[in-house]
């Protein structure tokens, strides 16, 4: 019995740190609607700064003072980030802020190594909480007891802050209805800044408090960020109580789950999230989001098919791209193939995201399933390449059909999180089911048949498929189905009132996007000759999001450019420098600030401006990127 009590208390202690970080994320999202990907980075900086301070300052006062000062210092960094970066992009399309915070995260991961060195740092134990307390023969670390108390205390303080102060009232009002607060004449800028500061403070505090139990290292952010998102979503976005309950739920399930299924912890949180979202689409304590009032500034430039001149130009560009093997070496061709494959991947997500308004955070699942589909067929069934390429993507299609059915029942961030959960579940299966998938070591030897093996032949295949896929999806945008899909994105109320079953339209789009991603994955398996769980991983899903956002989410085919620019830059940077994350992150942040509508979105705006006001000099400025009139 004592054992179960102690296991329960241990779970509560884990819940406390999770809650601190999650509550900060929840508050920030609730008010600013920013999906703050950098929240884990702030948590990590909190731990690093606290490490430095607690090593320098001696005694109990030095330790606890160091923890608190670190949290305040990082909150200050948060304020600077909010004012310098995020303020500029609140009006950018939804999720664009995600791109900015993603860029920041990349930068921070390299920066902490530059500042604090590459080694794992192990900090001091907390003065007064070094040992354990005996509980009927079981040991409970006294620091755990401290955390168990701290969780509800922080919850209480936040509750008082929200219920008893004017600031808190404003925050709650803004969480429910942002427009209303703006209408009340509240200085929205400072409300947002202060909310961001409080959220970052909580994250940094959560990180700083890990010092006595964890090692401080440069991958801490990734270790926590996904789990924190999950907790926030299970609890219900913007709900502090929800974050607390969800943190306890997840931690306790984990603490007891490992007693029965020791291997479960890797997917447990995602299973819980998927189950919660299917039963309660807004999380345990969340409320249905007020029907999104479309932000003004959303494309007033209706999409149109290419004119015949533009078609010729596109064809010409394709022909030029097809001549690459005449003068480029094998490496350039292989890179070209890889870029073409990522074009396929990006346009498939773009179709779902831009046309359907459904931002998937787990799109790599279908890319990876396509790749695994090919690997299974080629290695186990020994089928020839052409057959594998045709059938492999069907695995992506089936995955999308099953997961998509559940996912399209939700919308917005909840949709994003459910897709993430499904992707993680698929990833975990690939990662752990070693006897079938080879686990982490993947499936090797999936090389193309001899007719496709030479880099130039493979490049032509990849380029051809990429062109076909791009054209096909573009045609679909302007097909009756595409119109219906855009209609569901713009107004669910109206689509229902004109006889459209929106969920079925969205489901179909999901399956189309998933199958297309699977085609990309199938080619990728042959390009690399092997398949790994990475091909289904979160970082690949994030890559796809970044490519779409970079290209411009409001455009018809911006993802093509986004994929080319991002992938080419990525490959080049990884080849040139060990600090590729720092440079790439900096580039993304820059793009976000300079091109808030994405690269293609910006080009279109320039072209538009040039059309309306065309002083002789202006054309030169707009010319370099070669717009396609």
């Amino acid at each position: 019995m004592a054992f179960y009590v102690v296991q329960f208390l241990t779970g509560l202690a884990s819940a406390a740190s999770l809650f601190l970080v999650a509550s900060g994320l929840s508050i920030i999202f609730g008010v600013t609607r920013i999906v703050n990907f950098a929240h884990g980075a702030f948590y990590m900086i909190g731990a690093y700064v606290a490490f430095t301070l607690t090593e320098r300052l001696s005694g109990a006062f030095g330790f606890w003072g160091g923890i608190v000062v670190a949290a305040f210092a990082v909150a200050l960094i948060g304020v600077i980030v909010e004012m310098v970066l995020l303020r500029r992009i609140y009006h950018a399309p939804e999720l664009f802020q995600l791109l900015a915070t993603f860029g920041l995260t990349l930068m921070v991961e390299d920066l902490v190594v530059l500042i604090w060195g590459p080694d794992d740092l192990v900090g001091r134990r907390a003065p007064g909480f070094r040992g354990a307390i005996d509980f009927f023969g079981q040991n409970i670390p006294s620091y755990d007891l401290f955390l168990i108390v701290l969780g509800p205390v922080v919850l209480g303080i936040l509750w008082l802050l929200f219920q008893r102060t004017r600031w808190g009232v404003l925050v709650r009002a803004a969480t429910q209805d942002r427009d209303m607060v703006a209408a009340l004449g509240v200085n929205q800028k400072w409300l947002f800044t202060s909310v961001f500061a409080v959220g970052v403070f909580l994250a940094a505090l959560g990180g700083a408090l890990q010092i006595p139990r964890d090692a401080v290292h440069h991958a801490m952010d990734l270790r926590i960020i996904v789990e924190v998102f999950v907790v926030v979503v299970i609890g219900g976005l913007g709900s502090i109580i929800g974050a607390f309950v969800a943190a306890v739920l997840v931690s306790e399930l984990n603490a007891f789950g490992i007693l029965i299924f020791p291997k479960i912890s890797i997917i447990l949180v995602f299973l819980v999230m998927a189950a919660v979202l299917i039963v309660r689409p807004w999380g345990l304590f969340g409320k249905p989001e007020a029907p999104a009032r479309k932000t003004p500034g959303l494309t007033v430039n209706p999409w149109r098919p290419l004119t015949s001149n533009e078609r010729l130009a596109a064809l010409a560009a394709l022909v030029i791209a097809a001549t690459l093997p005449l003068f480029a070496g094998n490496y350039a061709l292989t890179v070209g193939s890889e870029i073409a494959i990522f074009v396929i991947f990006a346009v498939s997500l773009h179709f779902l995201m831009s046309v359907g308004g459904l931002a998937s955070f787990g799109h790599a699942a279908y890319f990876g399933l396509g790749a695994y589909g090919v690997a299974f067929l080629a290695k186990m069934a020994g089928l020839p390449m052409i057959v594998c390429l045709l059938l492999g993507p069907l695995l992506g299609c089936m995955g999308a059909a099953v997961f998509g059915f559940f996912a399209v029942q939700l919308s917005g961030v909840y949709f994003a999180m459910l897709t993430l959960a499904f992707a993680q579940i698929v990833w975990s299966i690939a990662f752990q089911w070693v006897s079938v998938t080879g686990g982490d070591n993947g499936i090797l030897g999936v090389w193309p048949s001899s007719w496709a093996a030479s880099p130039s032949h493979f490049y032509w295949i990849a380029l051809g498929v990429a062109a076909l896929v791009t054209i096909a999806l573009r045609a679909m945008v302007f097909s009756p189905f595409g119109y219906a899909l855009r209609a569901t994105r713009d107004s669910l109320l109206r689509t229902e009132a004109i006889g459209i079953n929106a969920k079925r339209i969205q489901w179909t789009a999901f399956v189309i996007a998933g199958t297309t991603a699977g085609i990309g994955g199938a080619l990728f398996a042959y390009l690399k000759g092997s398949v790994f769980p990475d091909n289904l991983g979160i970082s690949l899903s994030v890559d796809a999001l970044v490519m779409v956002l970079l290209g411009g989410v409001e455009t018809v085919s911006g993802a093509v450019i986004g994929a080319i620019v991002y992938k080419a830059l990525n490959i080049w940077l990884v080849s040139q420098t060990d600090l590729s994350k720092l440079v790439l992150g900096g580039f993304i942040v820059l793009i976000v600030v300079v091109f808030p509508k994405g690269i293609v979105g910006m080009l279109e705006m320039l072209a538009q401006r040039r059309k309306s006001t065309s002083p002789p000099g202006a054309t030169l400025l707009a010319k370099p990127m070669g717009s396609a009139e």
Partner: protein
Amino acid sequence: MRARNIFVGAAFALLAGGMAHSALAQDIKIGEINSYSLLPAFTEPYRKGWQLAVEEINAAGGINGKKLVVVSKDDGGKPADAQTAANELVSSEGVAMLTGTFLSNIGLAVSDFANQKKVFFLAAEPLTDAVTWSKGNKYTFRLRPSNYMQAAMLVEAASKLPAKRWATIAPNYEYGQSAVAVFKKLMSEKRPDIQWVDEQWPPQGKIDAGPVVQAVAAANPEAILNVTFGADLVKLVREGNTRGLFKGREVVSFLTGEPEYLDPLKEETPAGWIVTGYPWYSIKTPEHDAFLKAYQAKYNDYPRLGSIVGYQTIKAAAAILAKAGSTDPEKLIAAAEGLSMPSPFGEITFRKIDHQSTLGAFVGKTALKDGKGVMVESVYRKGADYLPSDAEVEKLRPKD
């Protein structure tokens, strides 16, 4: 469309980039790939090691009179990126061979690439047995003692313990799973009386140490096998110390004696764990002294195991190239098979049968000394003594 214009532009840029790098004809180039940005704690000492080797080789006149150049690439910890890098090294840089890699899956990916493109590959650090056995191929050699070898070394010591009730804690992925499987198999062969009472499989990098420690303690084992490492190990040790998990229990632990993993533990270092590792401070052989002196003189830092691996990888590559007198992969393979050479750990040989080097490891016990973790009672175990019989290896390895 614009898309394609930029596409072509990017291709041109890559092409131009490739040309700018073209090296002098008389140099011999080796391509090197590792997870520098993902695992700097391990790859920085590794890089220092191979840089020292390059310096020494060129100071001694290079390889058959030609200067040795190592072109190094980061793989970001992703197999797919490692292959892109391998491709660049082979296609654009024209390297004579590939070396490096740390993570098992990346080692396998590059090995498969080498096999497909018929390029010589000397895997430096990946531990998985598959590199030389089940997924082994003609073009791939490996330096570091494999998972199986480390397990066999540990089993030798562990089987002498009186403990009968064993629990295991391992990260839940291929490495952890196969480490536990090999250890259990070899252990049960020597000690049929052993019972396995609990196993914990925390996710790699995300251990929730409190509940894991608590669950292991509840099974009340007499001994524990640990396979976790890095930050997971730190958390496990801290929780285990606080909750008294290790009190009165034997612990056998993979790799924990390597400075990379032991040093961060500082005063938390648990005493008396049986570990494999690298006690650089207590190795008293002329070969190692020479290496240690050169390393400390150049970097004013002590070496980690990665330093040894990096150093010896390039030394081995140079020896193979020198013996082959050619960069032809087939000749390199012929030269490497059965080649013996000196190393800071004494003479090693690349076995013909499975292309595994006989580099060994130190087995000893952890201890706390002046607030730092050290290995004591360390003994060097030669790799050759911990490999299965040739007949078994034949069965494990696909025919070339």
